[in-house]
């Protein structure tokens, strides 16, 4: 038996409050680090003072320079919040997809909703359109809408193939749709001229230069999606053992699967719309949490939210500091940082298990 892991699991189980508290603390620390560090370093005491006062809408004292306040609140904070939201959304969606599809290789992009969102965004970039009223929001709004259309199409397609929502069929339908949409993405990339760089960098993903508005745009989808997933966390535990088994345990599998799919797709679609297709977070963060806290979704989902949020804030920090003042694409950093960490954890867990 794996004692350290078992201890952690028992510990986490017996004190849900502690794990939530720890998670929130972790995200908070990551965010403070995120607003403090960068091309211009601001002391943590100053940045946390600024954040604290901003939170309660208290006037800033004279001793804090105006420029620091502007950097923290106007430049870095929106970026950090967006990174946290996107990271949390992708990690939670990944955990839900892996559980629902009973497939450790599933990630938020398995279903193909992200391809729909990406295609919408790339079309906007390629055509250079800007709809009236929406203005600069044209891209994320179109992206969310195309993401939704894709989800509806996939679900209708699965229903058309068979009455029940079988996971194998969902995965296959997702693969069909995402490769079909992916071909259009490739087509646009092949046809494009000057927008190429813009499109590629959007596809690699970024949370920079987005402002609070993007975070605000994503927030409602994030909340609804998260509520849908959290409301089905026990059902997810049952669904991991197969639909038939879940049914015998009393789970209304059709309805619950649909709710989980919708919730995870909302999270994924909105995250892709505001930040592009950031890879790795949705695949690896749930596995990382599972290694530490076990596969019980009642704990896995909230902890994935916290870990994903903190992780993406830290990787974004890396992306903009490693070769400052230039920025690296965040999607590159997630894998660069995440893969070795995951590898080490996996090595430890499997070795301990064999010994145990």
């Amino acid at each position, binding site marked *: *038996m794996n004692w350290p892991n*078992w201890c952690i*699991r*028992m510990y986490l189980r017996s004190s849900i409050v502690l794990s939530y508290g720890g998670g929130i603390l972790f995200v908070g620390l990551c965010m403070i680090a995120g607003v403090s560090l960068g091309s211009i370093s601001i002391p943590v005491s100053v940045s946390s003072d600024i954040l604290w006062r901003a939170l309660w809408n208290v006037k800033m004292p004279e001793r804090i320079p105006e420029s620091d306040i502007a950097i923290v609140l106007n430049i870095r904070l929106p970026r950090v919040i967006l990174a946290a939201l996107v990271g949390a959304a992708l990690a939670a969606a990944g955990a839900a997809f892996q*559980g629902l599809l*009973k*497939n*450790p290789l599933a990630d938020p992009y398995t279903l193909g909703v992200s391809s729909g969102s990406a295609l919408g965004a790339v079309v906007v970039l390629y055509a250079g359109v800007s709809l009236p009223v929406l203005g600069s929001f044209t891209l994320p709004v179109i992206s969310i809408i195309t993401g939704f259309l894709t989800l509806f199409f996939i679900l209708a397609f699965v229903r058309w193939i068979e009455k029940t929502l079988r996971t194998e069929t969902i995965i296959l339908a997702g693969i069909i749709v995402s490769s079909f949409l992916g071909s259009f993405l490739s087509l646009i990339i092949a046809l494009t001229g000057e927008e190429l760089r813009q499109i590629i960098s959007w596809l690699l993903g970024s949370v920079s230069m987005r402002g609070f508005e993007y975070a605000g745009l994503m927030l409602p989808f994030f909340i609804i999606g998260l509520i849908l997933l959290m*409301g089905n966390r*026990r059902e997810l*535990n*049952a669904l*991991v*053992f*197969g639909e*038939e*088994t879940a*049914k*015998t*345990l*009393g*789970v*209304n*599998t059709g309805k619950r699967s649909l709710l989980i799919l919708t919730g995870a797709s909302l999270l994924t679609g909105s995250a892709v719309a505001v930040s592009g297709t950031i890879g790795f977070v949705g695949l690896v963060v749930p596995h990382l949490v*599972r290694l530490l806290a*076990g*596969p*019980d979704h009642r704990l896995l989902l909230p902890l994935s939210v916290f870990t994903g949020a903190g992780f993406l804030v830290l990787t974004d920090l890396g992306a903009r500091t490693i070769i400052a003042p230039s920025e690296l694409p965040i999607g590159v950093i997630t894998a660069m940082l995440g893969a070795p960490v995951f590898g080490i954890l996996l090595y430890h867990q499997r070795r301990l*298990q064999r010994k*145990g």
Partner: protein
Amino acid sequence: MLEVENVTGGYGGFPIVQQLQFHVDAGEILGIIGPNGSGKSTLLKLLYGGLKPYDGKVSIQAVPLTSLSQKEIAKQIAVLPQHMENTFYYTVQEVVELGRYPHQKGWFGRDSAGDREKMEEAMRETDVLKFASQTLESLSGGEKQRVFLARALAQEPRVLLLDEPTNHLDISFQVQLLDTLKQWSREKGMTVIAALHDLNIAAIYSDRLLLLDNGRQKALGKPSSVLEKSQLETVYEAKLYRREHPSLPRPQLFLEPRYISETYPPSCIEDLKIEQQADYVMITSSIYWKTLSTEIIGSGFGWHSCFLYKRMEEQAEEKQKQQFYELLDERKTKKHETAVMLLPYISEIAASYRSEREPGFAIFIISGGVSIFIDGKLTEAAYTHFLVKVVEAVSRACYDKQIQTKGASADKLDVSTAAVLIAASQRGSLYQTQESYSLLSTKIAQAVYHVVFDEVEEEWHENQQL
């Protein structure tokens, strides 16, 4: 308890089971048997609402399943599945906890103290409490099965459905699992419905059996009536033998392969080799004979290739067995292949008779023990018939001799102690009907009569001379 009314159901509009009609009482164990593809699993799915019937209805305690939610059904019916998918490393406790799902309410659905108590009880009853914090992966097949059983039990069901629960389990686990189910059905009044592929297991543990053939209800009733030889042979398309369980009033079935690799000598009777020693006689053969013996060692039916006639000592039975095993070791023969007759003394082979004509048979009489070898195929009924005929012939021969010699002693061949052994090669002509074997038995009885009569005469002469 559970009522199945004229149910037809299947997949994709294609009916797999048709017009099933039965009911199961509380605390009853119903075994569902039938060949692969006969609809056992489909029927179970219809019983827990995993499939909706095309026609007819299933009701539990007079409430149709269609008017219940999946959760309400799960409060009453638990299922032990045949295939167990599991992708991630769940602990035993987490798996068992899922069994409480139908009883938990609300958005949070936290485990109450009652839930924990029920879980612990379920784990204790299935003896998996000691694995509570281990992952499912680290357990053996039988232990995993018990964990899933604990999960089903945590549901506190009235009805437990099992789909081939003994698949991939050792005999010891099979017996353990089914004994547990039997105990629950008796003590908790839990109704158990199990699809079983092992007919003998089904016969022992089921109160009633439902035989499915191609989705149709072929028979329903007590194991002794459902496991009817000719019925099973048509349904399973295999040759079967039915026998009774040695200690239970339940039938057991035996399969017969189509091809038998054993080779037989041209004449099984001539193949018998007789060897006379000072204190024993041994008859050996290159083939196995199915024998019915009235003797203590190897009594009843058995398959033997060696027949030992040994003097009975004035000793305890255990001691005699011991001596017998020592002798076998010395002779390098195996005890399970040897039939033994313990006789008051060992004389020369008093008499023997070998029939030349078809069917071949041989009679050996050695100091009060009568052995009959028949080169033919006998049913068990034929064996008992022959046994009776032979004993009758022996006693008549003794009686007639007594009259002829006017009461002179014939106690050397006392009927009351006469040991009789009937052996048949179980090949060639079949003696199944009374008609076919009565002719042979008359012939044998006559031969036995004459041989015994003559032997008694010889012994009588010997006695006279003394």
